[in-house]
Structures are given as C-alpha cells and as structure tokens.
C-alpha cells in the first residue's frame, strides 16, 4: 500500500514491520519525529516493543548494546551531536558484534550549531566497524531499514541507515509499505548465537590481553588483535551478504538491485557525478539537462559507504573519462573522505579517470540545481586545472 509520509515515518514504518523488540529513544533534530512515531506505535499497541525514553544518546546506545547482548532485536536513532555523543558506544557495539540497527538523519555538527543537513556526522564515524548504508528517497529508507536488520543479524555487525536530515527526514513523498506477512517471511525472528543467559553463564566483552591465551579447555583463545582483525575481515565479507540480501529482498518485494552503487545514464557516459544520499537523485535532473545539450554524463549514488565496496566502485568508474565526487563532508585538513576513498579504489585500475572533488551543502546550504550544473561544466572544461584541492560549491566568501 502506498502512503505519503515523511522520511522519518518511512523509517519508523520499517522498524515497526521489522518487529523490533527494544527501542531506545532520545530526541534530536531532525531525527525526532522518527522516535515520536515509534512511541505512538508502541503506545497504541501497533508494535509490541519495549520503548525506553533514555536520558542521553550515550545511554540510548548502552540500552541497545545491553538489550542486543540479552538477545532482543534492538533499535535507536539519532543525528549529528547525538551520534558523536555515542561515539565510544558505537565502537563498543561493533567490537561486541551486536546486530543493532540505528537510523541517522544526517545533520551537520557543531560548532557552530546547525540543525541542517550534511554528512559530517556519519562520515566522521566511518572507522567504527559499523556498516553504513545511505538512502536517496523514502522508499529506500523504508526498504533499507528492513534489509539492515537482516544484514546485521547475518553478519553480527551493527548497521547505520543514513538519510539526509530535513531533505529526506522531513519531506513527504509516496512510498510502498508491504504487508506484515511479507516482511515476516523475509526477516525471521532474531536468534543470537550467544546471549546473556544464566543457564550458560558467560562474561561478555571482558578485558582481552594483547596476546593469545589458552582457555579452560586448553584451546587457544584469541587476543585483542585477532578479534579486531576478524571484525575487519567480516566487514569485508559482509559485502557478499549485502548483495545476497538485496537479491532476496528483490525477490520478495520486487524492489532493489544495484546493492552498492546506483547508476543513472552511465552506460555511454564520458563523465560521472558520484555522491551519497538524496543529492544523487537531484543530480539526475542535471544529468538530463546536460545530456540534452550533448554532454555524455551520468550519475552514481553510493549506497554502501562502509564496508567500502571498492571493487564495485572501480568497476563502475574505470570506463569513464572523469569522475566528479560531490560530498557533504570533509576530512578537515585533507580532502573529502569519499573522494579519497574513490581515488584509493581506482588506484589499482589499469586506466584511471580523472577525479575531482566538490564540497556542497554543508550545514544545509541550499544546493541549487544550477550550482551542480556549473560545477560539472567547470570540472569537465578545466580537467587539467583542477587539482586535488576540494572545490567549494555555492560558497559566498
């Protein structure tokens, strides 16, 4: 059934259909309407879940860490400084291999205060060991939430579902909501391999030594480094699972495909614009306009940022003359983090396109379509002149 609702409600609807068992909720703009909607679902008995109105984001993630360790499907949501306030907990959740799902309505981070959209919050959290998925519209938000639970519980790694604050969180657009039975068939109940259980008492996340050590049965138990290495290898292996789950989702719901990158008019393109989130859809209009003028250009939206799908990115980009990376975040003092990742993925390619970096829309600066048009035109025209330094779009300095 199609409904017209906000992106936050699209997320909440997905969470409800996933039959989440524990929700930790703390308000922060622009995520708040999501947790409000979930409280409504729980209070009206549409969703049978524990709803914990915690006193901080740090505690929100603590609740999820503990409830997930106890064996319940767990969810929370946040934005910006709330995400950063969770930081140590996020590392903890990944190291403890807990399949928590968290929505992040992307917002710029202070100082100075901003409530508007950019990607600095989640991009700055790319090295946690979480999976990060990005959405371009409400249907993707809703579907990605469902896929995220399945993915998290398959690979025992927490998943962040990221969507643009305001641009997606507060806009309304139509999306299809599947039947509960369909979702139940796709997403079985959460059955953890280890959980807190007095019948088999275990101590979770204990101090772990630098080196390996024998366990009580004489077998070798890993040290900290082995455990961390496994997190990394499993994240890499999760790419295969992402693809598999996307396929299963497609079979069940008739939507999906393009699990890692979502190309638009790229087949014969000389140039490709590359970015994450709703911007990739806005760029479609620009691509259409430029195609009408004879420029062979396409756009690719990246849907999985961590683990970075470098093979898919390489495959998608090597055939083109130029790649123009637009991003709403920066690794301050260096370049756009996504830009660096794209270049790194292309390093091993036989032929490499030129890659440019454009910083857009920080702190909600409106990205006008003509800005994107101008940036792409300039990039293509001045291929040689634009170096590694990020270019700033719509800057009024």
């Amino acid at each position, binding site marked *: 059934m199609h409904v017209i609702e906000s992106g936050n409600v699209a997320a909440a609807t997905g969470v409800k259909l996933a039959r989440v068992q524990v929700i930790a909720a703390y308000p922060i703009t622009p995520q708040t309407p999501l947790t409000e909607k979930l409280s409504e679902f729980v209070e009206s008995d549409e969703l049978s879940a524990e709803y914990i109105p915690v006193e901080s984001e740090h505690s929100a993630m603590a609740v999820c860490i503990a409830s997930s360790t106890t064996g319940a499907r767990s969810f929370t949501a946040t934005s910006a400084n709330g995400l950063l306030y969770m930081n140590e907990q996020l590392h903890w959740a990944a190291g403890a291999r807990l399949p928590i799902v968290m929505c992040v309505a992307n917002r710029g981070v202070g100082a100075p205060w901003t409530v508007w959209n950019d990607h600095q919050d989640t991009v700055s959290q790319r090295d946690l060991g979480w999976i990060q998925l990005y959405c371009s519209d409400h249907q993707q938000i809703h579907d990605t939430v469902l896929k995220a639970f399945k993915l998290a519980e398959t690979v025992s790694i927490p998943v962040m579902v990221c969507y643009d604050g*305001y641009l997606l969180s507060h806009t309304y*657009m139509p999306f299809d909501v599947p039947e509960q039975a369909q979702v139940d068939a796709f997403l079985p109940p959460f059955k953890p391999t280890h959980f807190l259980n007095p019948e088999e008492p275990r101590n979770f996340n204990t101090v772990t030594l630098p080196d390996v050590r024998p366990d009580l049965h004489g077998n070798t138990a890993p040290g900290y480094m082995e455990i961390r290495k496994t997190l990394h290898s499993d994240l890499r292996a999760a790419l295969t699972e992402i693809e598999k789950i996307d396929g299963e989702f497609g079979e069940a719901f008739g939507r999906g495909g393009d699990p890692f990158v979502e190309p638009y008019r790229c087949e014969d393109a000389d140039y490709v614009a590359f970015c994450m989130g709703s911007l990739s859809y806005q760029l479609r209009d620009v691509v259409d306009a430029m195609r009408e003028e004879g420029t062979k250009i396409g756009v690719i939206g990246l849907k999985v940022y961590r683990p970075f799908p470098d093979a898919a990115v390489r495959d998608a980009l090597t055939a083109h003359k130029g790649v123009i990376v637009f991003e709403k975040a920066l690794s301050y003092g260096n370049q756009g983090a996504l830009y660096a990742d794209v270049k790194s993925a292309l390093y091993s390619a036989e032929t490499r396109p030129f890659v440019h970096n454009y910083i857009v829309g920080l702190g909600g600066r409106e990205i006008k379509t003509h800005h994107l048009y101008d940036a792409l035109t300039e990039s293509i025209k001045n291929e040689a002149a634009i170096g590694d330094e990020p270019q700033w779009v719509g800057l009024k300095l």
Partner: protein
Amino acid sequence: MRQDIIEIRWHGRGGQGAITAAKIVANAAFKSGYNGVVMAPTFGTERRGAPVYTSLKIAREKIYDLSPIATPDMVVVLDHTLLEEVDVTHGLKEGGQIILNTPKSIDSYDFGAHRLSVADVTAYALEAGLAPGIVNTGVIGAFAKATGLVSRELLREAIRHEFSAMKPEENARAAALTYDRTVIGGA
C-alpha cells in the same frame, strides 16, 4: 529544469497546519495519478506563530529535486494577516494563482497579473463545527475549487483519512463549505 512539475507554496503560521493541508492535497494528487509528489516544510526551527511555508511539488513522473520551490505556480495563504509580513507572491510565475483565506472581499486586493481566489475559511470552519482557528482543511477546499487539481471527492476521502481520529466529518464539511463558497477572480 523540468517543466512538468506543478509547484505550490503554502504560507501559514507555525502550528496552523499548513503541512497537514499540503499533505492532504499531496495524497489526493497522488490518488489522481500524480506519481511524483514531494512536500517539503520549512526546514529548521519552526516556532508557533512565526510565519512558515511549505513546498509541494506534483508531477506525473517521480520528482528527484528536493530543493525548496523558487518559482511557484500557486501560493496558498492560510491567514491574510501574513500579507503584511511576507511577500507571498515572491517568485510566483506570471499568471500564477493565489488562494487566500480572508474575511475581506476579493476587490480589496490587487495582485496585478496574478489570479486571486478568496474564501473566509475561518468563518466557514467555525460554521462546520471546528474550533476557532482551524483553517487547514477549509483552505484546501478553496484550493481544490480554484485550481481544479484534485476532485472534491478525492479531497473528502483524503481529509477523512488524515483526520480519522479528529473530527473527520467536521473537517470534511469545512472543506466542502469552503469549496462551494470560494470566489475566483480573474487575472
């Protein structure tokens, strides 16, 4: 860049229900075959009483551009006192429509080349049994009449759905009363 998108801007005050009004129209439009519907409220710190606006874009095909409306085809004004604070015609296309909730007659206004429609929504809503100041359902009655974008029936259905828990009949009646009494001016 796309020429097929109808852009409607809704002016109200925080708490007045402009978002809900636009959402109801969005639903009715979607059911009328507009597959592309994007509604974007004022982004940021909305405060009760402060002027706010909401963008609604509708098109037959999916809409990708989420940026706010710069050159609307129509503007809907939920409260005539806003005219003193806000230039509601800003960017309005030539020959664009203005739908205004006002107790004054249509002759009291001059919007030049724009086409004005008026209705005393505040009064009709009271008459329909709503609490004072509930104007959002009434104003979309005026909108439907003036623009012809959505049918009276679909609108009624969309209102009943949105207000299923909150006076659905009264809200539907407010829209119907306003629909019937809206005065449409010439350009």
